[in-house]
């Protein structure tokens, strides 16, 4: 094995399957078998009717991701499994921030922050405001860091979804 094989990196696995009860367990058990944490997981429909796409993010070595990908692809219900490093994919995440509406009203800084980050306001309630920000993790995190002093009531970030840079 080369040194490259042993180096840990973020990998995104894209796998395609029929949507059948239990298939998610079959897939995740391949990771849990070797005690590998899944950093994020997203399941969605694809352009092909009846085929579902799973995006799985893990931090591991090339050697292991290669092995796991084959072991997942071998599952009877899985159509295809592939993996890529971040430089080979276009990815996006979305984050939602719930902050007290009073800081939106009272504090002029919040307007600047939202403007600077190109964030969107989705809902204003008398008690809270929901802000949306799409971007890479470091971008949604940057907004989080700036809003934090004003008091974040709730925060949620989707895992990244991704598409390969070259047509497959």
């Amino acid at each position, binding site marked *: 094995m080369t040194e490259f094989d042993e180096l840990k990196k973020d990998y995104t696995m894209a796998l395609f399957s029929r949507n059948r009860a239990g298939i998610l367990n079959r897939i995740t058990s391949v990771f849990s078998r070797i005690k590998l944490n899944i950093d994020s997981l997203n399941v969605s429909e694809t352009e092909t009717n009846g085929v579902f796409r799973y995006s799985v993010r893990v931090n591991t070595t090339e050697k292991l991701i290669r092995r796991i990908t*084959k072991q997942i692809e071998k599952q009877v219900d899985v159509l295809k499994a*592939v993996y*890529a490093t971040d430089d*080979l994919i276009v990815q996006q995440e979305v984050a939602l921030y719930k902050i007290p509406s009073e800081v939106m009203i009272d504090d002029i800084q919040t307007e600047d922050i939202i403007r600077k980050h190109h964030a969107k306001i989705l809902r204003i309630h008398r008690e809270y405001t929901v802000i949306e920000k799409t971007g890479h993790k470091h971008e949604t995190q940057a907004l989080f860091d700036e809003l934090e002093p004003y008091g974040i009531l709730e925060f949620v970030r989707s895992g990244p979804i991704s598409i390969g840079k070259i047509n497959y």
Partner: protein
Amino acid sequence: MFKAENSNIKQIINNNWQQIDDEIQSDRAINMLGSQAIINSLIAEGVEYMFGYPGGAIMPTYDVIHQMQDKIKHVLVRHEQGAVIAAQGYARASGKVGVCIATSGPGATNLITGIADAMIDSTPLVCITGQVHKDLLGTDAFQETDIIDISMPITKWNYKITEASEIPKVMARAFYIAKSGRPGPVLIDITKNAQIEFLEYSYKKCLHFNSYLPEPTPKLQAIKEAASLINHAKKPMVVFGQGVILGNAEQELKTFLDKSGIPAAATIMGLSALDNKHPNYVGMLGMHGNYAPNLLTNQCDVLIAIGMRFDDRVTGTLATYAKQAKIIHLEIDNSEINKNVRVNVPVLGNVKFTLPQITDRVIENQFPEWCKEFDNLHQQELEAVIKQDLNPKTDAISMPEVIDMVNELTNNEAIIVTDVGQHQMAACRYAQFNQTRSMITSGGLGTMGFCIPAAMGAKLAKPNRTVIGIVGDGGVQMNIQELGTIMQSEIDVKIIILNNEFLGMVRQWQELYFDKRYASTEITSPDYQVLASAYGIASAKVVQREQLKSTLQEMLSHDSAYLLEVMVGQEDNVFPMISPGDSVSDMRLK
């Protein structure tokens, strides 16, 4: 771009997807109960025997088994683990899919060890479990357990049927998936309501399943590269495994070896694929395998792996395994390529088809100098180990001499079924085979308690062959309850207990690596003759060497089951041995 061996993913998905699920066409549908559909599906698949145990959630299906007993035979075991292992023995001896059936809850969980064993040893099984009524799922109902989730990592495929109408299609898929490609166990869980509902039944065998590619298509380029490497090799060596047997490629292997002149060694799972007397055969690989093939793995220049998976018991430490060699790997399962050992030329596909294409392209050859190296090392093993094993100077009988006597008295024609431990290694090292599917042993999982049920299954699969179970005094006491099955179903198996009054293999490791601290390895046995007689099974006990031959003869000529206990040397060790973590080239003779 996502990395994939086949770059056009979209095309693959679309192509697969367009194969519509059209396996079932209800041209002549018959209205029947779900339970009848289950049994009719089994009959349609040509199932002759099933092994099982009834219980609440599977009772409607047992009702049909009772009505259909002239068409399909059910063997009542004494524990569900016996059922699944008997189904494995049946599958391994016959090459057909083994079938077992159990009820929900404990019935289903008792199958787990056998399913895990079948998974790791690629044995085709269909396991049917009853399940509570679909309205009771998730309510902690009586004997409800989520066997689908429990069995997920140890099944090739599994499926919960909750509607009777699903039965024929899912059963057809179960058999197709179990036996195609790299075989494995499939579990079908069927809720009670699905067994007692009516459906329109028609059965059509499954020939494809849209997300599943059982066998990769061989690539000509890989075959050419493999042949070229072989043709330039000075010291090539073949290591073959069960893939040869599963692919029915025994003749193809022999043809390849005859032409290429390359020495060949078997993994434990590959035993009996090649006649032991074949001139190219150089023995068994692995921790307790033969000296020459293990040592020379680290000297060959081209290693040709045929239908084997580089298990750690075969390779020893990977850091020094065959580093000097170019490695060709003929394999049906893509996930095995580069899993443990980096391969230079992967040849994907069924060896039945890939091997002859390589044979066509290799030159006729002989390697007299290279083969002499095998002979020389074999002589060392002969002097240091084998002679003492077969003709011990001690009063105590040795395990190998019992196996050797069995060879002599059966003309190497018996099916040998083993349990796990020292006796297993003795049997694998010394048993001789002149036909394939003659060694049935738990290779990957190392399941104690395997011998008796597997021997039952093997005998029912091959009634005209002598089936001899070799078992230790530890393993025999796991699943010993199956003597009741042997009694009731009158299965003519010969069981030889090699009794050293120890859990021998663990004791050997304690002697070698734990300063002889024999923690919980001294084990007492019941009086096996009394036990056998309680089950109405003939038996004998041999303590003196002089009695061995005549008693074995008596056992073999007996017209029904026989239990023979042979007292063997208490603290005999199995050698040669590759110590855990050592290299194949560091194999020790003592």
